[in-house]
């Protein structure tokens, strides 16, 4: 059995859903962050799969590679985002002595 585009897409969708679930259900901030990273990586997998199995036979290398280039940018941005997120987590911990997102309740109406 050969591994085709749809297998990668299904795997990507599963990873994305697990990541989204983690991001919404985890109480620890770092857990939420891991969920978000997982979502980004699911997207990366999807991009690479679409590059590997081009939709049109006449796609040039440059067009196919734009999927790879996209992944590089996503990795970079995810790293920057994680750096800011951890800095914020430290800031919140200093203020509140917790990084439990359920206890972020200073602001509500």
């Amino acid at each position, binding site marked *: 059995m050969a591994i085709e585009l749809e297998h990668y897409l299904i795997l990507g969708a599963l990873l994305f859903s697990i990541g989204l679930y983690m991001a919404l259900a985890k109480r620890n901030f770092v857990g939420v962050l891991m969920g978000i990273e997982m979502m980004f990586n699911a997207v990366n997998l999807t991009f690479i799969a679409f590059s590997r199995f081009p939709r049109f036979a006449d796609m040039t290398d440059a067009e196919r590679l734009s999927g790879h280039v996209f992944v590089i940018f996503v990795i970079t941005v995810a790293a920057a985002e994680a*750096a800011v997120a*951890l*800095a914020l987590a430290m800031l919140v911990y200093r203020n509140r002595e917790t990084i439990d997102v359920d206890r972020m309740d200073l602001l509500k109406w």
Partner: protein
Amino acid sequence: MLSDWGHVGFLLLLALVFPVGGIASSWMLGLLKIRPQAPDPIKEDIFECGVETEGTAWVQFNFRYYYYALLFVIFDVEAVFLYPWAVSLDEASVTGFIAVVTFIVILTIGLAYAWRKKALEWL
């Protein structure tokens, strides 16, 4: 295609058999009273390369490590961009060179900032 993965599958099998076999045989020999049963606090302890364990693994790390992680990430990600450029150096020509130099200059400003803000010192 699939047969290429057979080698990996074989290794995976071996990797599973080795620890599971060890634990299972020890348990079997214990049942048959061949293996002696002599508990001892040192034997029961967590094996940590001969070093005695101290406290739990759930300790808070000093947050200063975070700065190092951050600086590492910056220059790690730099390499992600430099590698594709280096591979296609011929085609990228002068424009590509200028772009990469600009990129590195921007990162250097970040490093200079971190340096001035004493992020590189262990206070």
